[in-house]
């Protein structure tokens, strides 16, 4: 049997070899740029950050604060599970995972990084929740939040090597997330939660959670070697693709990987495409039906704008438009496939107008359903001025669908475009064009945006104007960007 090779000299050799083709002080330069960028962004967005972490009028009851903390914990745990959290870089996965080195030493840096990151996130979440809570809490809560974050990272790490624990923990996190959001929405719509009796002595909680974290950490490190290879390879691919997406400013790398991974895990059963619908519409409908959990979350998210009823109107407006577009994007992955390589469209022999028209139906229905439900809930809760606001959903939904379709047709970020020189430095044109593909069509929702921002009562005339604008805008979009005599997606 091959003896275990010490990992430290191997890593030192790799670092030395890498350093030979890097500039001196490159790491320091990167650290300086990152820290400076964060500082500049923090100063620029200080008002927004204050509103997020410490609003002027705190509004959450004790139950609300607990619900907010649960939501943050659920989101953090699910994010950690998506990332690994135990992982290695792609080169290390190729060269070192199969080498006779100590697996514990190989994997422990990623666990340390995950625990540190989760601790920071937990502290930030606790700080934010404290800022929103009516009753003032001890600053020791922030320490507790950080420790809970570390515990969540350790739980996610343990789940990585135990499939049963993984499915149980994932399900629990999703249920906790749903319950937390439901409680927050209920409180925002006027529900008075019961009083929570008794004070929690922080002097007891912090040492107990701290001790628990240390014990869990020791067990976690000891357990690292148990992490299965397939899990490590998968998280290495995730981390690598995430890095590619960030460095290449190409979000579709990550989205495609997640999509591919999702369908690879599913066990499908062939069904007949609906004969009453055009083929591509029938395909989209089938795709939507195959993701019931996504549909359920989309339906539940129609209540999310209620949480923002008290926020500035522009925040609510953006949330409504973003929610509509996200709901409409449920089936646009097929369009993205065609935008990347139109080989299937040539096989289908359909014109670009037929394709876009057929692919617009399901997103339009989903977008319209989401926007109508969200506006109806806002209207019922009294958060909006008088008027039949839900009718606007019938216009905003199809516009959101056209926006989602346009974004999917944009395909990939073009990095061959000439950058624009500005006093702040060169701005890459490709990512900017990509980011605005689809968003530009939301200009068609201008009538709705104006009445929402100005808090005006909604008149039937305004509804008619918005419906006409939507119909006309989508027709113009279809006729300007598609061709009835050309196969493919472009004109």
């Amino acid at each position, binding site marked *: 049997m091959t003896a275990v090779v010490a990992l430290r000299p191997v890593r030192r050799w790799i670092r030395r070899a890498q350093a030979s083709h890097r500039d001196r002080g490159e790491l320091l330069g990167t650290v300086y740029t990152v820290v400076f960028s964060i500082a500049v962004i923090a100063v620029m967005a200080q008002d927004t950050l204050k509103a997020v972490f410490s609003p002027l009028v705190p509004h959450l009851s004790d139950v609300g604060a607990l619900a907010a903390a649960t939501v943050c914990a659920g989101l953090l745990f699910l994010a950690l599970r998506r990332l690994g959290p135990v992982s290695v870089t792609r080169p290390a996965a190729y060269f070192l995972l199969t080498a006779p080195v100590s697996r514990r030493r190989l994997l422990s840096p990623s666990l340390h990084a995950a625990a540190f990151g989760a601790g920071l996130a937990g502290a930030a979440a606790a700080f934010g929740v404290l800022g929103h809570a009516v009753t003032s809490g001890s600053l020791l809560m922030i320490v507790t939040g950080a420790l809970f974050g570390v515990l969540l990272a350790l739980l996610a790490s343990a789940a990585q090597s135990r499939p049963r624990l993984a499915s149980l923990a994932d399900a629990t996190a999703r249920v906790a997330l749903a319950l937390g959001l439901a409680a927050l929405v209920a409180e925002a719509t006027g529900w008075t939660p019961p009083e929570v009796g008794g004070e929690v002595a922080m002097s007891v909680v912090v040492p107990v959670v701290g001790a628990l974290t240390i014990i869990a950490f020791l067990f976690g490190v000891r357990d690292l070697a148990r992490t299965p290879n397939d899990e490590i390879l998968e998280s290495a691919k995730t981390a690598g693709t995430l890095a590619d997406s960030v460095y290449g400013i190409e979000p579709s790398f990550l989205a495609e990987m997640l*999509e*591919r991974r999702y*369908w*690879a895990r*599913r*066990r*499908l*059963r*062939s*069904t*007949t*495409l609906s*004969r009453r619908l055009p*083929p*591509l519409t*029938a*395909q989209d409908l*089938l*795709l939507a039906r*195959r*993701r019931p959990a996504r549909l359920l979350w989309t339906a539940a998210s129609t209540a999310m704008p209620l949480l923002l009823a008290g926020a500035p109107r522009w925040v609510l407006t953006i949330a409504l438009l973003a929610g509509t577009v996200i709901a409409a994007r449920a089936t646009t*992955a*097929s369009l993205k*496939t065609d935008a*990347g*390589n139109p*080989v*299937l469209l*040539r*096989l*289908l*022999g*359909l*014109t670009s107008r037929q394709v876009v028209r057929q692919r617009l139906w399901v997103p339009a229905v989903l977008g319209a359903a989401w926007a109508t439900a969200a506006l109806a809930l806002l209207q019922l809760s009294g958060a909006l001025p008088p008027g039949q606001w839900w009718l606007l959903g019938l216009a905003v939904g199809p516009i959101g669908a056209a926006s989602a379709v346009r974004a999917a047709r944009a395909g990939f970020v073009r990095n061959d475009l000439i950058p624009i020189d500005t006093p702040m430095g060169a701005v890459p044109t490709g990512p900017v064009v990509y980011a605005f593909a689809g968003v530009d069509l939301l200009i068609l929702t201008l009538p709705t945006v104006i009445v929402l921002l100005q808090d005006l009562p909604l008149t039937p005339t305004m509804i008619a104007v918005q419906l006409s604008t939507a119909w006309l805008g989508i027709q113009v979009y279809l006729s300007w960007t598609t061709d009835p*005599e*050309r*196969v*493919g997606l472009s004109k």
Partner: protein
Amino acid sequence: MSYGSTPVLVNVGLTVPAGAGVCVTGENGIGKSTLLRCVSSLQRADSGTIRVFGGEPGDSPDFWRAVATTVEPPTWYPGLTLREHAELVCRAHGQTADDAGIDEALERFGLAGHADAIPPSLSSGQKQRLTLALVLLRPSSLLILDEPEQRLDPDGRAKVAAMLAEYQAGGGSLLLASHDDKFAVASGAEIVSMEQLTGPDPTAPDPSVPDPTVPDPTAPDPTARDDQP
């Protein structure tokens, strides 16, 4: 046709008669795939004329309803099984699953057991068979196939060759590139090597002509022709 300063197709002439097949052979890099891509309109020739069914190949729906090709690497729709991909292709051409004989086709290509799988989960040979099944399922008048025998086992090659012969017997035309003469013969296609298709390079210096800048008026027209179809 050239890639940068490297000429690939020079002075090529080819005719595929309607209802017949032509198999282009030749060593790697000689330009077989490039020729097929030019005929499929996926690559533009620097000069010359290409005619498919009397018209210029392009992005028109009429062209792509008449021509089916495997020249490009395939992509697959997310969340759709093999059978559903086949049904989608047939539906787009106005056929129902039963009329098109999807189940029989999957059976013949040895894919019936994978009908509920998603294409990315298949092996490369199975993906090749699925691509061939799709182009043969949908109606077409000309098949352009780039090395269809690749990644197929001997039994699969024989089956596909028989189907291609059947396709031509039904009136379809076939243009394929292959390295396997036995497969080409079994598919009923006439074997033509790239050397046979290629005339002299008009830009190459000719020792029999004293002044190389004067073009030879007897040289053949440097075009690739496909006017039947």
